[in-house]
C-alpha cells in the first residue's frame, strides 16, 4: 500500500469531501494560497477557488462565529484554527453557540461543522503554541472530539467529521504532519466511537491518544523485551468514547495506563481512568494510572520541555512496576 504523510492525508480527505458535497468549505487564516503555515491545505485553493477556501483576517472568534451561522443555514464549514492554543479565543462561539444550538432549539437547528486544529509539545514553540487542549472541549456536551494517531486515522476521521451533523473538533499533532503511514487509494471512513486495538497483549493495557499511541507502542516494544505483554489501544475519538473496547481489554489484562499529551490534572487521563475504575474495578490487579503532560505551562527550553510529556521509557517503567505487583503507595 502507498504511504503518505499525515498532512497529505488531511488534504486528501478535505478535497474528496469538497468534491462530493458543494456545501463544504474551508475558512480560516492563510488557508488559501499559503495553504496554512504547515502547508496542509496546499493546492486546495487552485482546485476549489477562493469562494470555498476562504482566507480571513486574524479574527478567530469572528470566523468561528461566521462558520456557526453558515452551518446553521445549510453549509458545512471546516474551520481552520492555526494553533490549538487559539481555542481560548473561540470558546464562546464554539462552546456557548455551536455546542448548544441543537439542544437549545429542541433539535430544530443543527451545526454541522468541523474545527480542525492541532496539539502537541516538543516543537520548541513555548507556552502559547504547544498546548494540547482537547480535554477543554471534550468537557462540553454537544461537541465531538477526534484525535487521529496517524495519516490513516487522520484521513478516515476527517471524512467522518465532515459528514457528521454535529460540531466536531479534530486535533492533529503538529509534530506528525510529515509522518508517513499506509493509506489506501480507495475511499474509506473511520467511524466515531470505535477504538482501534493496535497491539494485542495480556499483561497490561496502554491506552494512548494521538502521538501517545506511538509512545505506547514503543513502550510495548520495551516491555516485550522484558517479557511483558502489553496491549495498546487508540480510542481515536474521545467523544464519543468506545468504553466497551477499553473495558474488555482491561478486564483481560487487569492493569491499565492512560497516556495523553493534555495536562494530567483534570484531564482526559483522569476521565478514562475513572470510567475503568467504576466499571472494571473487580477485574483490576493494580490502580489504573494516568500519564499526562506535566501541570506546568509548556516551557521553551528543550532541556525543560522534554521533561513535560510522557516518553516510552517512562511509560514502560511504570508498566513494569504495575505488572510486578509493586505497591504504588502505602497500604
Amino acid at each position, binding site marked *: 500500500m502507498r504511504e503518505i504523510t499525515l498532512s497529505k492525508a488531511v488534504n486528501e480527505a478535505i478535497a474528496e469531501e469538497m468534491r462530493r458535497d458543494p*456545501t463544504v*468549505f474551508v475558512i480560516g487564516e492563510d488557508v488559501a494560497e499559503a495553504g496554512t503555515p504547515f502547508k496542509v491545505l496546499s493546492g486546495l485553493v487552485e482546485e476549489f477557488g477562493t*469562494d470555498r477556501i476562504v482566507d*480571513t*483576517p486574524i*479574527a478567530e*472568534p*469572528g*470566523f*468561528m*462565529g*461566521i*462558520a*456557526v*451561522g*453558515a*452551518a*446553521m*443555514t*445549510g*453549509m458545512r*464549514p471546516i474551520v481552520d484554527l492555526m494553533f490549538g492554543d487559539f481555542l481560548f479565543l473561540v470558546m*464562546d*462561539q464554539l462552546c*456557548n*453557540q455551536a455546542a448548544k*444550538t*441543537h*439542544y*437549545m*432549539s*429542541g*433539535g*430544530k*437547528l*443543527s451545526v*454541522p461543522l468541523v474545527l480542525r486544529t492541532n496539539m502537541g509539545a516538543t516543537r520548541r514553540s513555548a507556552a502559547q503554541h504547544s498546548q494540547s487542549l482537547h480535554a477543554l472541549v471534550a468537557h462540553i*456536551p*454537544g461537541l*465531538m472530539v477526534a484525535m487521529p494517531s496517524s495519516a490513516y486515522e487522520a484521513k478516515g476521521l476527517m471524512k*467522518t467529521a465532515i*459528514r*457528521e*451533523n*454535529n460540531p466536531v473538533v479534530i486535533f492533529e499533532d503538529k509534530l506528525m504532519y510529515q509522518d508517513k503511514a499506509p493509506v489506501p487509494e*480507495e*475511499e*474509506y*471512513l473511520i*467511524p466515531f466511537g470505535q477504538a482501534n486495538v493496535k497491539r494485542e497483549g495480556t499483561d497490561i493495557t496502554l491506552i494512548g491518544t494521538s502521538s501517545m499511541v506511538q509512545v505506547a507502542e514503543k513502550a510495548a516494544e520495551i516491555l516485550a523485551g522484558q517479557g511483558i505483554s502489553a496491549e495498546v489501544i487508540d480510542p481515536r475519538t474521545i467523544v464519543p468514547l468506545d468504553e466497551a473496547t477499553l473495558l474488555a481489554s482491561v478486564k483481560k489484562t487487569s492493569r491499565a495506563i492512560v497516556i495523553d499529551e493534555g495536562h494530567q490534572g483534570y484531564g482526559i487521563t483522569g476521565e478514562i481512568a475513572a470510567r475503568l475504575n467504576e466499571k472494571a474495578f473487580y477485574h483490576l490487579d493494580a490502580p489504573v494510572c494516568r500519564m499526562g503532560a506535566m501541570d506546568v505551562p509548556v516551557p521553551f527550553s528543550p532541556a525543560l520541555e522534554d521533561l513535560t510529556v510522557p516518553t516510552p521509557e517512562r511509560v514502560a517503567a511504570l508498566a513494569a512496576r504495575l505488572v510486578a505487583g509493586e505497591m504504588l503507595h502505602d497500604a
Partner: protein
Amino acid sequence: MTQPSNTESYLRMYTQMVRIRAFEDQANQLYLSAKMPGLTHMYSGQEAVAVGICEALTSDDKITSTHRGHGHCVAKGAEFKQMFCELLGKEEGYCRGKGGSMHIADQSNGNLGANAIVGGSMGIATGAAMSARARGSGEVAVCFFGDGATAQGLMYEVMNMAALWKLPVIYACENNGYSEYTRTDEIAAGSIVARAEAFGIEAHQVDGQDVLAVNELSQKLIARARKGEGPFFIELMTYRYHGHHVGDINREYYRTKDEESDWKSNRDPITNFGRWLTEQGLVAPEDLAAIDADVYKDAEDAVAYALAAAYPDGSEVDMHVYAPTDPATLRVGG
C-alpha cells in the same frame, strides 16, 4: 400613501406591534405571579424596531435575536402558543422547553434564535449571510443587537469580514439607552454609526419609535443587500419600558421615573402610529380598539393553554445533545 395595499400593510404593522406588547404584558404577569420559571427581558417600548424591520423581510430571510428577543420572534411570524409554552418550559414550546425565553428559536420563520451572550449572535448572522450567498438563495440576514453589544469585540471582527466580502447582512443596533443597568453614554465612546462607517459600511440612524420610518429604510436597505450592495448598519433610537429584566423593579439609581413616563406618554410607537392611522382617515379608532381586544384575547388564551400544557417527559433530558446523522451517509459512497 393611502393606497389600500398600504393600509393593509399598516394595519399588519400595527397589529404586530400590539401582539408584541400583549405578549410582553402577559409574560410580565406570569413572572409577577410566580408562574414562570426564571427571568425574562421585556421588549415593550421597542416594538417599532422589530416590526419595521421584519415586515420588510420574507420568511426565508434569517434573523438572529437577543436575550430581549420576544419582539423579534413575534415580528418574524411566531405563534403565541408555542412561545408561551417555551417560556414556561413546556413540551409544545418552540424548543420543547429546552431553550426558554433567552434561547427561543423558530427556524420555520427564519429566526435562528435568541442568544443569552450579549453580542453572541453577530457571527451567526454574518455566517447566515455568507451561507445565503454561497447557496445563491437571495436571502438577507438581519442581526439584532443592543447598544450594550457594541462594546463586544466580535462585532468589529465580523463587520470587517462582512464589509470585505460584501455580505447581505444588516446590523440592527437597537439603542434603548441602557446597557443593562448603565447609561449607554457611559459605555459607548464616540459615535456608534461611525464605528460601522470606519469599515466602509453605509450606516444610518433612525427613530426607532416610528415604525414607518424604520420600515421604509429597511425596505430600501434589504432590497439593496439582496443585490449585493451590503452590508448595512442601522442604529435605531428606542427605549426600554421595563428594567433590564422583569426583576429590575427599583431602577431610579440609573434612570428617573419622569424619563420613563415621558417616553411612554409621548413616544410610544403603538399609540403614535395608531393616532397617525386615524388622523389619516385610514382606520376608525374603534377598529384599532377591536384589534387590540382581539390580540389581548389571543394572548390570554395562549397563556391559559400554555399553563395547562404538559412538561416534557424526563426522558427528553438527554435528547438533542447530538443531532442524528444518517448512517448511510457515513459509509463509503454515502
